[in-house]
């Protein structure tokens, strides 16, 4: 058995699938980095980032079935929504708040992902409300017998909200096909987890609902995929919800309006770089002989092209018409105004 076969066999994935996952992690990172450049250049007013979270998101979402399953994302879910089907152009349309932004038509801040075409429910800013929406989607899936799984994401800071308790309790009672992913990056904006949680692991709370709580290293893309695959299988076969806690690092400030050096030391920030999922996954695949220098070069070129295309495309698109600002407070008959950008 070669190293290549061993790496893929351990999680049931072929080399093409592993490379696709690597491409997605790298693509999410590249778009995210471009968002910051655009912000610092004064082109877009706000960025909220997923850097450091991409490995967990790509690994976990790769276990789902886009087009069938549902996702209720949160503001760091850039890699998750890309993996679920959103395009770089659509991410950038939201970043520029353009009329054809599928998430909100430029109405919401960037990072509030949603897309009817992808079964990605619109998300808001009050944290943890989305857990209940995922439970409701899962309830509907169960009642309608659709075989769908609803997955939702949040940070460990959100885990203290009452909606989390109410949602997990209900999902557990009814064995709903739901997965809650907690991306624990150790900070709720500036507050470290020792001041948010009395125990180190959010996953420990799962026992209180009688459901599995699984911890995974968020820099271990394949490890994240493995636990998610088990959770999806459990959900799809009537086994009920799973709480997955991915230990991740937040490589950026909370948002473009935050200065994290005020509350994180230079030493800590430097050390956190070692937990970056991107170089780790790259090295893992390179060591296994899957990611050759040729393939990596080709991917880098492709990704740079996608990011440039998405940026110039979004920048060229029209802003929303002020006359449309009163639309869709309620349902109304009106021709569609935009939508996906491919």
């Amino acid at each position, binding site marked *: 058995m070669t190293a290549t076969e061993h790496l893929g066999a351990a999680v049931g994935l072929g080399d093409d699938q592993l490379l696709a996952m690597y491409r997605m992690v790298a693509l999410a990172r590249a778009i995210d980095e471009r968002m910051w450049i655009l912000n610092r250049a004064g082109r877009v007013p706000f960025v909220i980032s997923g850097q450091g979270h991409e490995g967990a998101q790509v690994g976990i979402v790769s276990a789902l079935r886009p087009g069938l399953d549902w996702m209720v994302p949160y503001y760091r879910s850039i890699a998750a929504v890309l993996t679920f089907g959103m395009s770089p152009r659509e991410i950038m349309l939201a970043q520029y708040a353009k009329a054809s932004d599928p998430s909100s038509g430029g109405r919401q801040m960037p990072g509030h992902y949603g897309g*009817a075409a992808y079964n990605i429910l619109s998300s808001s800013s009050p944290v943890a409300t989305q857990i209940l929406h995922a439970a409701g989607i899962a309830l*509907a899936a169960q*009642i309608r017998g659709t075989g769908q799984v609803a997955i939702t994401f949040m940070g460990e800071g959100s885990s203290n909200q009452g909606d989390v308790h109410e*949602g997990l309790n209900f999902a557990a009672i009814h064995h709903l096909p739901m997965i809650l992913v907690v991306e624990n990056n150790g900070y709720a904006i500036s507050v470290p987890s020792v001041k948010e949680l009395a125990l180190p692991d959010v996953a420990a709370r799962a026992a209180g609902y009688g459901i599995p709580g699984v911890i995974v290293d968020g820099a271990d893309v394949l490890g994240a995929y493995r636990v998610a695959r088990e959770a999806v299988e459990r959900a799809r076969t009537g086994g009920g919800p799973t709480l997955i806690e991915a230990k991740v690092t937040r490589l950026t400030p909370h948002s473009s309006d935050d200065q994290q050096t005020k509350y994180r030391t230079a030493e800590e920030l430097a050390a956190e770089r070692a937990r970056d999922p991107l170089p780790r996954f790259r090295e893992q695949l390179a060591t296994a002989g899957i990611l050759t220098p040729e393939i990596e070069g080709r991917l880098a070129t492709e990704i740079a092209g996608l990011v440039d295309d998405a940026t110039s495309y979004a920048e060229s698109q029209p802003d929303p018409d002020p006359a449309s600002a009163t639309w869709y407070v*309620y*349902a109304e008959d009106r021709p569609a105004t935009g939508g996906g950008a491919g």
Partner: protein
Amino acid sequence: MAIRTFLEAIRDTLGEEMRRDPSIIVLGEDVGVKGGVFLVTDGLHAEFGETRVIDTPLTESMIVGTSIGAAANGLRPVAEIQFADFIFPAFNQIVSEAARMRYRSNNAFGCPITIRAPYGGGVHGALYHSQSVEAFFTHVPGLKVIVPSTPYDAKGLLRSAIRDDDPVLFFEHKKMYRSVRGDVPDGEYTVPIGRAAVTRVGTRVTVVAYGLMAHYALEAAERVAEEGISVEVVDLRTLRPLDRETLLGSVRKTGKCLVVYEDNRFGGYGAEIAAIVAEEAFDYLDGPVMRVAGPDVPGVPYNHVLEDWFMVNPEKIAEGIRTLAAY
């Protein structure tokens, strides 16, 4: 045509709509085997089973939040909040999520949910089983708010609410559940959301009311009629969207407007009615827009003497009419 109580009209509607549309579910606290604390959902569990009539934990935020998600994935939930007083844990889900879903997604997602809640005082419910909470929600674009006063309207409006593609709050005055009866047609009918009704035609004063107060307004109108004051009563039925045409049409005719609501006076829903009338019918007014409303204390007290002190009643409304008529 049959005589039904207010409660029976609501219960009948739930059953009929659930028979018509398998995507409708009912969820809330005690709505299942028990049939709800007021028995509004009695019989639904037996007919439709626990899959479609769901007894929830005591988690109002979850009741609304899961309804939002279930609606996104093809169901049409009718949620019950056991008492309107207990709706506040769900406030964030209603206001931040349900109300804003369509707007924030640029019409990609809607939120076809109905939230029923018994409200109102005069039933010895004290501070936490008596509140009128409509003003918190009528303030919010994206929500529709209905407060019916008759079995006919309750049935027709609940049917419209369930079939509506946006979130609707449906407040039922608990004192009316068994005390109010009326004709309800046998066939399927709807009452459109956003249409008020002139329930008494008059010439000198317009009284604007809704819910239980719509009944009390009619009683008050009858009392002052004996004194020679001709009162027109407008039962709003839907608070948002508001039927401005009927409201303003009546005030422009009578030149005087008395707004009646059971909620605390300050900042209550009637304050918006007064503002609209002042802005849009000023040239027709022959006196100040006045209000008869609940006193500004934090709740309806329990003791019957105190409760009577709190509650707006026909005589208090009649006094308001006399004062305004004499202006």
